[in-house]
Protein backbone atom coordinates (compact mmCIF):
# COMPACT_ATOMS: atom_id res chain seq x y z
CA UNK A 1 0.00 0.00 0.00
CA UNK A 2 2.67 2.43 0.96
CA UNK A 3 5.05 1.18 -1.70
CA UNK A 4 7.63 0.62 0.98
CA UNK A 5 9.22 -2.01 -1.20
CA UNK A 6 11.50 0.34 -3.03
CA UNK A 7 13.38 -1.11 -5.97
CA UNK A 8 16.62 -2.85 -5.09
CA UNK A 9 18.54 0.00 -3.63
CA UNK A 10 22.25 0.43 -3.62
CA UNK A 11 24.09 0.96 -0.40
CA UNK A 12 24.94 4.50 0.56
CA UNK A 13 28.19 5.88 -0.75
CA UNK A 14 30.82 6.86 1.76
CA UNK A 15 30.03 10.52 1.21
CA UNK A 16 26.33 9.91 1.70
CA UNK A 17 27.05 7.97 4.88
CA UNK A 18 29.16 10.74 6.35
CA UNK A 19 26.62 13.34 5.52
CA UNK A 20 23.72 11.33 6.98
CA UNK A 21 25.59 10.62 10.18
CA UNK A 22 26.20 14.31 10.52
CA UNK A 23 22.55 15.11 9.84
CA UNK A 24 21.41 12.56 12.38
CA UNK A 25 23.79 13.92 15.00
CA UNK A 26 22.49 17.42 14.40
CA UNK A 27 18.92 16.21 14.45
CA UNK A 28 19.51 14.66 17.85
CA UNK A 29 20.86 17.92 19.21
CA UNK A 30 18.06 20.05 17.81
CA UNK A 31 15.23 18.21 16.09
CA UNK A 32 12.79 20.37 14.11
CA UNK A 33 9.79 21.02 16.32
CA UNK A 34 6.86 18.73 15.63
CA UNK A 35 9.05 15.86 14.46
CA UNK A 36 10.35 12.75 16.12
CA UNK A 37 12.92 10.42 14.63
CA UNK A 38 12.12 6.81 15.24
CA UNK A 39 15.34 5.18 16.37
CA UNK A 40 16.62 2.49 14.07
CA UNK A 41 19.98 1.22 12.99
CA UNK A 42 19.16 1.66 9.32
CA UNK A 43 20.81 4.89 8.27
CA UNK A 44 19.38 4.58 4.78
CA UNK A 45 15.74 4.64 5.83
CA UNK A 46 14.46 7.07 8.41
CA UNK A 47 10.96 6.93 9.79
CA UNK A 48 9.86 10.23 11.26
CA UNK A 49 6.74 11.03 13.22
CA UNK A 50 5.04 14.30 12.35
CA UNK A 51 2.56 15.96 14.63
CA UNK A 52 0.19 18.51 13.08
CA UNK A 53 0.81 22.03 14.35
CA UNK A 54 -1.60 23.61 16.80
CA UNK A 55 -4.23 25.78 15.20
CA UNK A 56 -4.16 23.91 11.87
CA UNK A 57 -6.47 21.28 10.38
CA UNK A 58 -4.08 18.56 11.50
CA UNK A 59 -3.57 19.76 15.07
CA UNK A 60 -2.66 16.88 17.36
CA UNK A 61 -2.78 14.27 14.58
CA UNK A 62 0.28 12.15 14.07
CA UNK A 63 1.55 10.80 10.78
CA UNK A 64 4.65 8.96 9.72
CA UNK A 65 7.10 9.99 7.06
CA UNK A 66 9.42 7.50 5.49
CA UNK A 67 12.61 8.90 4.07
CA UNK A 68 14.75 6.67 1.86
CA UNK A 69 18.18 7.84 0.84
CA UNK A 70 19.72 7.02 -2.53
CA UNK A 71 23.31 5.94 -3.00
CA UNK A 72 24.41 9.44 -3.92
CA UNK A 73 22.52 11.51 -1.41
CA UNK A 74 22.61 14.54 -1.21
CA UNK A 75 23.28 14.93 -4.93
CA UNK A 76 20.08 12.99 -5.46
CA UNK A 77 16.96 13.82 -3.53
CA UNK A 78 15.75 11.41 -0.89
CA UNK A 79 12.46 9.66 -1.49
CA UNK A 80 9.94 10.99 1.00
CA UNK A 81 6.49 9.47 1.42
CA UNK A 82 3.85 9.25 4.11
CA UNK A 83 3.22 5.81 5.52
CA UNK A 84 -0.36 4.63 5.59
CA UNK A 85 -2.56 6.40 6.55
CA UNK A 86 -1.41 9.53 4.75
CA UNK A 87 -2.92 12.82 5.84
CA UNK A 88 -5.83 14.13 3.76
CA UNK A 89 -4.31 17.00 1.84
CA UNK A 90 -4.75 18.43 -1.67
CA UNK A 91 -1.12 17.58 -2.45
CA UNK A 92 -0.81 14.24 -0.74
CA UNK A 93 -2.01 11.12 -2.53
CA UNK A 94 -3.62 8.28 -0.67
CA UNK A 95 -0.58 6.09 -1.37
CA UNK A 96 1.55 8.55 0.58
CA UNK A 97 3.19 10.28 -2.36
CA UNK A 98 3.72 13.98 -1.83
CA UNK A 99 3.54 16.57 -4.59
CA UNK A 100 6.17 19.01 -3.39
CA UNK A 101 8.72 20.49 -5.78
CA UNK A 102 11.72 20.40 -3.45
CA UNK A 103 11.46 16.62 -3.29
CA UNK A 104 11.92 16.36 -7.04
CA UNK A 105 12.86 19.05 -9.57
CA UNK A 106 13.80 21.68 -7.03
CA UNK A 107 15.90 19.50 -4.79
CA UNK A 108 19.21 21.03 -3.85
CA UNK A 109 22.04 19.25 -2.04
CA UNK A 110 22.10 22.08 0.48
CA UNK A 111 18.75 20.88 1.81
CA UNK A 112 18.58 18.49 4.71
CA UNK A 113 16.06 16.04 6.14
CA UNK A 114 15.31 18.68 8.70
CA UNK A 115 14.60 21.40 6.13
CA UNK A 116 12.47 18.99 4.09
CA UNK A 117 10.46 18.12 7.20
CA UNK A 118 9.84 21.76 7.91
CA UNK A 119 8.61 22.29 4.35
CA UNK A 120 6.24 19.37 4.65
CA UNK A 121 4.84 20.60 7.94
CA UNK A 122 4.39 24.04 6.46
CA UNK A 123 2.58 22.51 3.51
CA UNK A 124 0.26 20.67 5.92
CA UNK A 125 -0.27 23.77 8.02
CA UNK A 126 -1.38 25.91 5.11
CA UNK A 127 -3.92 23.40 3.85
CA UNK A 128 -7.36 24.94 3.27
CA UNK A 129 -9.26 21.66 3.36
CA UNK A 130 -8.77 18.02 4.19
CA UNK A 131 -9.17 16.51 0.77
CA UNK A 132 -7.30 14.35 -1.69
CA UNK A 133 -5.82 15.69 -4.92
CA UNK A 134 -8.32 15.71 -7.78
CA UNK A 135 -6.48 13.05 -9.73
CA UNK A 136 -5.86 10.85 -6.71
CA UNK A 137 -7.52 7.68 -7.98
CA UNK A 138 -5.91 7.80 -11.39
CA UNK A 139 -2.48 8.53 -9.96
CA UNK A 140 -2.63 5.85 -7.30
CA UNK A 141 -3.80 3.31 -9.89
CA UNK A 142 -0.79 4.14 -12.03
CA UNK A 143 1.54 3.62 -9.10
CA UNK A 144 0.25 0.19 -8.19
CA UNK A 145 3.41 -1.58 -9.21
CA UNK A 146 5.24 0.08 -6.34
CA UNK A 147 6.59 2.93 -8.40
CA UNK A 148 8.63 5.55 -6.60
CA UNK A 149 7.27 9.11 -6.58
CA UNK A 150 10.65 10.16 -7.90
CA UNK A 151 9.73 8.51 -11.20
CA UNK A 152 6.64 10.63 -11.51
CA UNK A 153 6.75 13.63 -13.74
CA UNK A 154 5.23 16.20 -11.44
CA UNK A 155 3.53 19.42 -12.31
CA UNK A 156 3.88 22.05 -9.66
CA UNK A 157 1.19 24.59 -10.30
CA UNK A 158 -0.11 25.58 -6.92
CA UNK A 159 2.24 27.63 -4.81
CA UNK A 160 -0.38 28.64 -2.27
CA UNK A 161 -0.65 25.45 -0.28
Amino acid at each position, binding site marked *: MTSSSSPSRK*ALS*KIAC*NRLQKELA*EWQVSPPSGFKYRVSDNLQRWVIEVTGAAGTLYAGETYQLQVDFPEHYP*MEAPQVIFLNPAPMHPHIYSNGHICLDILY*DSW*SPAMTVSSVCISILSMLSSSPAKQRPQDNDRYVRNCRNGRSPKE*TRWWFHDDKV
Partner: protein
Amino acid sequence: MAAAAEAEEEVRQEVEAVASVYGDDCRVVRGFPPHLVVHVRPHTADDSSQQFVELFLGIKASSQYPKAPPHVYAVESKGLDENRQVYLISSIQNKARELSCYPMLVTLCEEAVEMLSNMNHPAGDCPLCLYPLVKENDGSALPFMKLMSCYHCFHSDCIMRWWEWLQNDDTDSKKSSTAATTEVIHASEGLDLSSSAKHHNVSQHKGLCPVCRKVFDEKDIEHVRDLLGANTSQLASLSIDLDEDEKEVLHSESEKIRQEKFASLFNLQQERNGLIEPKKDLSIQPGMYIPRPPSAPTASEGDTVDDSSEDTTTSTSGTEPLNQTNSTGGTTKHNSSSGHRRRHRSHASRRQPHGQGQPARQQWQRKGGDTSHQ
Protein backbone atom coordinates in the same frame (compact mmCIF):
# COMPACT_ATOMS: atom_id res chain seq x y z
CA MET B 1 14.58 80.28 9.79
CA ALA B 2 18.06 81.28 8.77
CA ALA B 3 19.50 78.92 11.37
CA ALA B 4 17.42 76.07 10.02
CA ALA B 5 18.57 76.78 6.49
CA GLU B 6 22.13 76.86 7.71
CA ALA B 7 21.74 73.56 9.51
CA GLU B 8 20.24 71.99 6.40
CA GLU B 9 23.12 73.30 4.34
CA GLU B 10 25.59 71.69 6.77
CA VAL B 11 23.83 68.35 6.52
CA ARG B 12 23.79 68.56 2.73
CA GLN B 13 27.51 69.19 2.76
CA GLU B 14 28.01 66.19 5.00
CA VAL B 15 26.10 63.99 2.56
CA GLU B 16 28.27 65.31 -0.23
CA ALA B 17 31.32 64.39 1.81
CA VAL B 18 30.12 60.80 2.18
CA ALA B 19 29.39 60.64 -1.53
CA SER B 20 32.86 61.82 -2.37
CA VAL B 21 34.55 59.42 0.07
CA TYR B 22 32.65 56.38 -1.13
CA GLY B 23 32.21 57.36 -4.76
CA ASP B 24 30.30 54.73 -6.71
CA ASP B 25 29.73 52.75 -3.54
CA CYS B 26 27.45 55.46 -2.20
CA ARG B 27 23.96 56.02 -3.49
CA VAL B 28 22.22 59.12 -2.25
CA VAL B 29 18.53 58.29 -2.12
CA ARG B 30 17.68 61.71 -0.81
CA GLY B 31 19.86 64.73 0.01
CA PHE B 32 17.77 66.10 2.82
CA PRO B 33 16.84 64.69 5.21
CA PRO B 34 19.72 62.37 4.37
CA HIS B 35 19.00 58.91 3.12
CA LEU B 36 21.98 56.94 1.83
CA VAL B 37 22.78 53.40 0.81
CA VAL B 38 26.48 52.66 1.11
CA HIS B 39 28.15 49.55 -0.21
CA VAL B 40 30.49 48.56 2.59
CA ARG B 41 33.31 46.07 2.13
CA PRO B 42 35.98 44.82 4.50
CA HIS B 43 39.57 45.93 4.08
CA THR B 44 41.09 43.39 1.73
CA ALA B 45 43.43 45.59 -0.26
CA ASP B 46 41.02 45.29 -3.19
CA ASP B 47 41.54 41.56 -3.40
CA SER B 48 38.03 40.33 -4.03
CA SER B 49 39.06 36.71 -3.55
CA GLN B 50 39.78 37.52 0.07
CA GLN B 51 36.40 39.11 0.61
CA PHE B 52 33.80 36.90 2.28
CA VAL B 53 31.28 39.44 3.50
CA GLU B 54 29.75 42.65 2.27
CA LEU B 55 26.87 44.87 3.19
CA PHE B 56 24.67 47.49 1.62
CA LEU B 57 24.14 49.73 4.60
CA GLY B 58 21.09 51.96 4.63
CA ILE B 59 21.23 55.17 6.68
CA LYS B 60 18.01 57.10 6.86
CA ALA B 61 17.80 60.27 8.91
CA SER B 62 14.93 62.53 9.84
CA SER B 63 14.90 66.28 9.45
CA GLN B 64 16.03 66.44 13.09
CA TYR B 65 19.41 64.96 12.14
CA PRO B 66 21.97 65.12 13.68
CA LYS B 67 20.13 65.70 16.94
CA ALA B 68 18.08 62.59 16.31
CA PRO B 69 20.31 59.69 15.25
CA PRO B 70 19.54 58.17 11.86
CA HIS B 71 17.93 54.77 11.41
CA VAL B 72 20.45 52.17 10.28
CA TYR B 73 19.44 49.02 8.37
CA ALA B 74 20.76 46.35 6.06
CA VAL B 75 19.54 46.67 2.49
CA GLU B 76 21.34 43.54 1.37
CA SER B 77 24.24 41.52 2.64
CA LYS B 78 26.36 38.66 1.48
CA GLY B 79 28.19 36.07 3.52
CA LEU B 80 26.64 37.19 6.80
CA ASP B 81 24.35 34.84 8.62
CA GLU B 82 21.45 36.30 10.54
CA ASN B 83 23.25 36.50 13.87
CA ARG B 84 26.20 38.35 12.49
CA GLN B 85 24.02 40.72 10.52
CA VAL B 86 21.87 41.55 13.53
CA TYR B 87 24.96 42.12 15.62
CA LEU B 88 26.49 44.36 12.99
CA ILE B 89 23.42 46.52 12.50
CA SER B 90 22.68 46.92 16.19
CA SER B 91 26.29 47.91 16.88
CA ILE B 92 26.16 50.57 14.21
CA GLN B 93 22.83 51.78 15.53
CA ASN B 94 24.36 52.08 19.00
CA LYS B 95 27.23 54.02 17.57
CA ALA B 96 24.74 56.38 15.95
CA ARG B 97 23.07 57.00 19.31
CA GLU B 98 26.42 57.69 20.93
CA LEU B 99 27.25 60.25 18.31
CA SER B 100 23.98 62.16 18.49
CA CYS B 101 24.33 65.87 17.74
CA TYR B 102 27.52 65.36 15.74
CA PRO B 103 27.83 64.80 12.02
CA MET B 104 28.31 61.06 11.92
CA LEU B 105 27.55 59.70 8.47
CA VAL B 106 31.15 59.02 7.47
CA THR B 107 31.97 57.69 10.94
CA LEU B 108 29.10 55.20 10.76
CA CYS B 109 30.29 53.92 7.41
CA GLU B 110 33.82 53.59 8.72
CA GLU B 111 32.55 51.72 11.74
CA ALA B 112 30.78 49.30 9.39
CA VAL B 113 33.99 48.80 7.40
CA GLU B 114 35.94 48.07 10.57
CA MET B 115 33.39 45.61 11.85
CA LEU B 116 33.11 43.87 8.49
CA SER B 117 36.88 43.56 8.37
CA ASN B 118 36.77 41.73 11.68
CA MET B 119 33.98 39.49 10.40
CA ASN B 120 35.64 38.78 7.09
CA HIS B 121 35.66 35.01 7.24
CA PRO B 122 33.13 32.46 6.10
CA ALA B 123 30.99 31.21 8.93
CA GLY B 124 29.48 27.87 9.65
CA ASP B 125 29.46 24.59 7.81
CA CYS B 126 29.82 23.65 4.20
CA PRO B 127 26.20 23.40 3.03
CA LEU B 128 26.98 20.24 1.09
CA CYS B 129 28.78 18.01 3.60
CA LEU B 130 27.71 19.90 6.74
CA TYR B 131 31.20 19.84 8.18
CA PRO B 132 32.82 23.15 9.22
CA LEU B 133 34.42 25.28 6.53
CA VAL B 134 37.05 26.51 8.92
CA LYS B 135 37.87 24.62 12.08
CA GLU B 136 37.67 27.03 14.94
CA ASN B 137 40.44 25.72 17.16
CA ASP B 138 43.36 25.32 14.81
CA GLY B 139 42.15 27.14 11.73
CA SER B 140 42.99 24.16 9.56
CA ALA B 141 40.51 23.13 6.95
CA LEU B 142 39.96 21.59 3.60
CA PRO B 143 40.25 24.14 0.84
CA PHE B 144 37.01 25.97 0.28
CA MET B 145 35.69 28.33 -2.37
CA LYS B 146 33.11 31.03 -2.62
CA LEU B 147 30.60 31.82 -5.33
CA MET B 148 31.23 35.38 -6.41
CA SER B 149 27.57 36.18 -6.98
CA CYS B 150 26.28 35.36 -3.51
CA TYR B 151 29.35 34.71 -1.34
CA HIS B 152 28.12 31.31 -0.30
CA CYS B 153 31.11 29.15 0.54
CA PHE B 154 31.67 25.45 0.00
CA HIS B 155 34.51 23.02 0.35
CA SER B 156 36.16 22.96 -3.04
CA ASP B 157 35.87 19.19 -3.25
CA CYS B 158 32.21 19.29 -2.32
CA ILE B 159 31.20 21.86 -4.92
CA MET B 160 33.24 20.12 -7.60
CA ARG B 161 31.59 16.82 -6.85
CA TRP B 162 28.19 18.47 -7.15
CA TRP B 163 29.13 20.25 -10.35
CA GLU B 164 30.34 17.04 -11.97
CA TRP B 165 27.16 15.38 -10.84
CA LEU B 166 25.10 18.08 -12.58
CA GLN B 167 27.08 17.75 -15.78
CA ASN B 168 26.49 14.02 -15.79
CA ASP B 169 22.90 14.46 -14.90
CA ASP B 170 22.48 16.91 -17.72
CA THR B 171 23.91 14.51 -20.24
CA ASP B 172 21.77 11.81 -18.77
CA SER B 173 18.55 13.73 -19.03
CA LYS B 174 19.26 14.55 -22.63
CA LYS B 175 19.53 10.90 -23.49
CA SER B 176 16.56 9.57 -21.67
CA SER B 177 13.84 12.05 -21.04
CA THR B 178 13.15 11.19 -17.45
CA ALA B 179 12.12 14.04 -15.24
CA ALA B 180 15.66 14.26 -14.02
CA THR B 181 16.60 17.47 -12.36
CA THR B 182 19.30 19.62 -13.69
CA GLU B 183 19.86 22.82 -11.93
CA VAL B 184 21.88 23.88 -14.87
CA ILE B 185 20.30 26.48 -17.06
CA HIS B 186 21.46 27.62 -20.41
CA ALA B 187 22.57 31.12 -21.06
CA SER B 188 19.68 32.72 -22.86
CA GLU B 189 21.40 33.34 -26.16
CA GLY B 190 22.84 29.85 -26.16
CA LEU B 191 19.55 28.12 -25.55
CA ASP B 192 18.65 27.04 -29.07
CA LEU B 193 22.22 26.60 -30.05
CA SER B 194 23.24 24.25 -27.33
CA SER B 195 20.18 22.07 -27.53
CA SER B 196 20.43 21.60 -31.26
CA ALA B 197 24.17 21.61 -31.69
CA LYS B 198 25.88 18.27 -31.68
CA HIS B 199 28.65 19.50 -29.48
CA HIS B 200 27.43 19.82 -25.98
CA ASN B 201 29.15 23.00 -25.03
CA VAL B 202 29.72 22.98 -21.31
CA SER B 203 31.01 26.51 -21.24
CA GLN B 204 27.56 27.83 -22.02
CA HIS B 205 26.29 26.59 -18.71
CA LYS B 206 25.56 28.56 -15.67
CA GLY B 207 24.70 27.06 -12.37
CA LEU B 208 22.43 27.94 -9.51
CA CYS B 209 23.84 28.24 -6.03
CA PRO B 210 22.69 25.20 -4.04
CA VAL B 211 21.86 27.45 -1.12
CA CYS B 212 20.12 30.51 -2.58
CA ARG B 213 19.66 29.49 -6.24
CA LYS B 214 21.27 32.66 -7.43
CA VAL B 215 22.81 32.22 -10.86
CA PHE B 216 26.56 31.91 -10.81
CA ASP B 217 29.08 31.87 -13.57
CA GLU B 218 30.85 28.69 -14.50
CA LYS B 219 34.08 30.62 -14.19
CA ASP B 220 33.75 30.31 -10.43
CA ILE B 221 33.94 26.56 -10.81
CA GLU B 222 36.64 26.59 -13.44
CA HIS B 223 38.69 28.69 -11.09
CA VAL B 224 38.43 26.04 -8.40
CA ARG B 225 39.36 23.36 -10.89
CA ASP B 226 42.47 25.31 -11.79
CA LEU B 227 43.35 25.96 -8.19
CA LEU B 228 42.91 22.41 -7.07
CA GLY B 229 44.51 20.88 -10.08
CA ALA B 230 42.37 18.08 -8.88
CA ASN B 231 41.62 16.32 -12.09
CA THR B 232 42.66 13.01 -10.69
CA SER B 233 40.13 13.13 -7.93
CA GLN B 234 37.59 14.42 -10.40
CA LEU B 235 38.13 11.44 -12.59
CA ALA B 236 37.34 9.28 -9.63
CA SER B 237 34.23 11.15 -8.68
CA LEU B 238 33.09 11.47 -12.25
CA SER B 239 32.05 7.92 -12.39
CA ILE B 240 30.32 7.79 -9.04
CA ASP B 241 27.07 6.98 -10.74
CA LEU B 242 28.46 4.49 -13.13
CA ASP B 243 26.20 1.49 -13.42
CA GLU B 244 25.56 -1.19 -15.94
CA ASP B 245 22.55 0.70 -17.20
CA GLU B 246 24.32 4.02 -17.26
CA LYS B 247 27.22 2.86 -19.31
CA GLU B 248 25.58 3.99 -22.49
CA VAL B 249 25.90 7.53 -21.28
CA LEU B 250 29.62 7.08 -21.30
CA HIS B 251 29.58 6.13 -24.94
CA SER B 252 27.56 9.17 -25.89
CA GLU B 253 29.11 11.87 -27.99
CA SER B 254 28.93 14.60 -25.41
CA GLU B 255 30.42 12.41 -22.74
CA LYS B 256 33.35 11.55 -24.96
CA ILE B 257 33.97 15.18 -25.69
CA ARG B 258 33.83 16.01 -22.06
CA GLN B 259 36.16 13.23 -21.09
CA GLU B 260 38.59 14.31 -23.72
CA LYS B 261 38.46 17.82 -22.42
CA PHE B 262 39.39 16.49 -19.01
CA ALA B 263 42.11 14.31 -20.44
CA SER B 264 43.69 17.27 -22.18
CA LEU B 265 43.36 19.41 -19.07
CA PHE B 266 44.92 16.63 -17.11
CA ASN B 267 47.88 16.41 -19.44
CA LEU B 268 48.39 20.11 -19.23
CA GLN B 269 48.38 19.94 -15.47
CA GLN B 270 50.74 17.03 -15.46
CA GLU B 271 53.19 18.79 -17.75
CA ARG B 272 53.24 21.73 -15.43
CA ASN B 273 53.70 19.51 -12.41
CA GLY B 274 50.48 20.94 -11.09
CA LEU B 275 48.99 17.69 -9.91
CA ILE B 276 48.09 17.08 -6.34
CA GLU B 277 47.41 13.46 -5.56
CA PRO B 278 43.90 12.71 -4.36
CA LYS B 279 43.73 12.46 -0.65
CA LYS B 280 40.00 12.17 -0.11
CA ASP B 281 39.58 8.52 0.70
CA LEU B 282 43.09 8.00 1.92
CA SER B 283 43.39 8.04 5.65
CA ILE B 284 47.02 8.25 6.57
CA GLN B 285 47.99 6.45 9.69
CA PRO B 286 51.29 6.41 11.51
CA GLY B 287 53.65 3.89 10.09
CA MET B 288 51.67 3.46 6.91
CA TYR B 289 53.66 3.11 3.72
CA ILE B 290 52.52 5.31 0.88
CA PRO B 291 54.03 4.42 -2.47
CA ARG B 292 55.32 7.28 -4.55
CA PRO B 293 53.35 7.46 -7.76
CA PRO B 294 55.60 6.98 -10.77
CA SER B 295 54.30 10.03 -12.60
CA ALA B 296 57.45 12.09 -13.12
CA PRO B 297 59.16 9.90 -15.75
CA THR B 298 56.08 9.86 -17.97
CA ALA B 299 55.73 13.59 -17.79
CA SER B 300 59.31 14.27 -18.82
CA GLU B 301 59.07 11.71 -21.55
CA GLY B 302 56.01 13.54 -22.80
CA ASP B 303 58.04 16.71 -23.01
CA THR B 304 60.68 15.25 -25.24
CA VAL B 305 58.54 13.51 -27.83
CA ASP B 306 57.81 15.39 -31.00
CA ASP B 307 54.45 16.49 -32.31
CA SER B 308 53.86 13.57 -34.62
CA SER B 309 53.64 11.08 -31.80
CA GLU B 310 51.81 13.35 -29.48
CA ASP B 311 48.49 11.60 -29.67
CA THR B 312 49.96 8.32 -28.49
CA THR B 313 51.40 10.08 -25.50
CA THR B 314 48.03 11.55 -24.87
CA SER B 315 46.31 8.24 -24.69
CA THR B 316 48.92 6.60 -22.50
CA SER B 317 49.21 9.41 -20.05
CA GLY B 318 45.46 9.63 -20.05
CA THR B 319 45.18 6.21 -18.50
CA GLU B 320 48.33 6.42 -16.45
CA PRO B 321 46.94 8.38 -13.49
CA LEU B 322 44.15 5.92 -13.11
CA ASN B 323 46.57 3.14 -12.56
CA GLN B 324 48.08 5.25 -9.89
CA THR B 325 44.84 5.93 -8.14
CA ASN B 326 44.09 2.30 -8.40
CA SER B 327 47.23 1.34 -6.62
CA THR B 328 46.62 3.94 -3.96
CA GLY B 329 43.16 2.52 -3.63
CA GLY B 330 44.70 -0.87 -3.14
CA THR B 331 46.60 0.21 -0.08
CA THR B 332 43.52 1.63 1.55
CA LYS B 333 41.23 -1.13 0.47
CA HIS B 334 40.65 -2.34 4.00
CA ASN B 335 39.14 0.91 5.21
CA SER B 336 37.20 2.07 2.19
CA SER B 337 35.97 -0.75 0.12
CA SER B 338 33.35 1.34 -1.63
CA GLY B 339 35.91 3.93 -2.58
CA HIS B 340 38.06 1.27 -4.04
CA ARG B 341 35.26 -0.20 -6.03
CA ARG B 342 34.41 3.18 -7.37
CA ARG B 343 37.94 3.80 -8.50
CA HIS B 344 38.11 0.43 -10.02
CA ARG B 345 35.02 1.09 -12.04
CA SER B 346 36.26 4.45 -13.10
CA HIS B 347 39.42 2.82 -14.29
CA ALA B 348 37.58 0.34 -16.41
CA SER B 349 35.22 2.87 -17.88
CA ARG B 350 37.71 5.57 -18.58
CA ARG B 351 39.68 3.21 -20.68
CA GLN B 352 36.84 2.52 -23.02
CA PRO B 353 36.99 5.67 -25.08
CA HIS B 354 40.71 5.26 -25.52
CA GLY B 355 40.30 1.58 -26.09
CA GLN B 356 38.38 2.34 -29.24
CA GLY B 357 41.66 3.40 -30.68
CA GLN B 358 41.96 5.53 -33.72
CA PRO B 359 38.52 7.20 -33.95
CA ALA B 360 38.60 8.46 -30.39
CA ARG B 361 41.99 9.99 -30.80
CA GLN B 362 41.13 11.66 -34.04
CA GLN B 363 38.15 13.16 -32.41
CA TRP B 364 40.26 14.51 -29.63
CA GLN B 365 42.40 16.31 -32.14
CA ARG B 366 39.47 17.74 -33.96
CA LYS B 367 37.94 18.95 -30.75
CA GLY B 368 41.21 20.52 -29.70
CA GLY B 369 41.36 22.34 -32.99
CA ASP B 370 38.06 24.14 -33.12
CA THR B 371 37.40 24.95 -29.52
CA SER B 372 39.69 26.53 -27.04
CA HIS B 373 38.46 25.81 -23.57
CA GLN B 374 41.64 26.55 -21.72
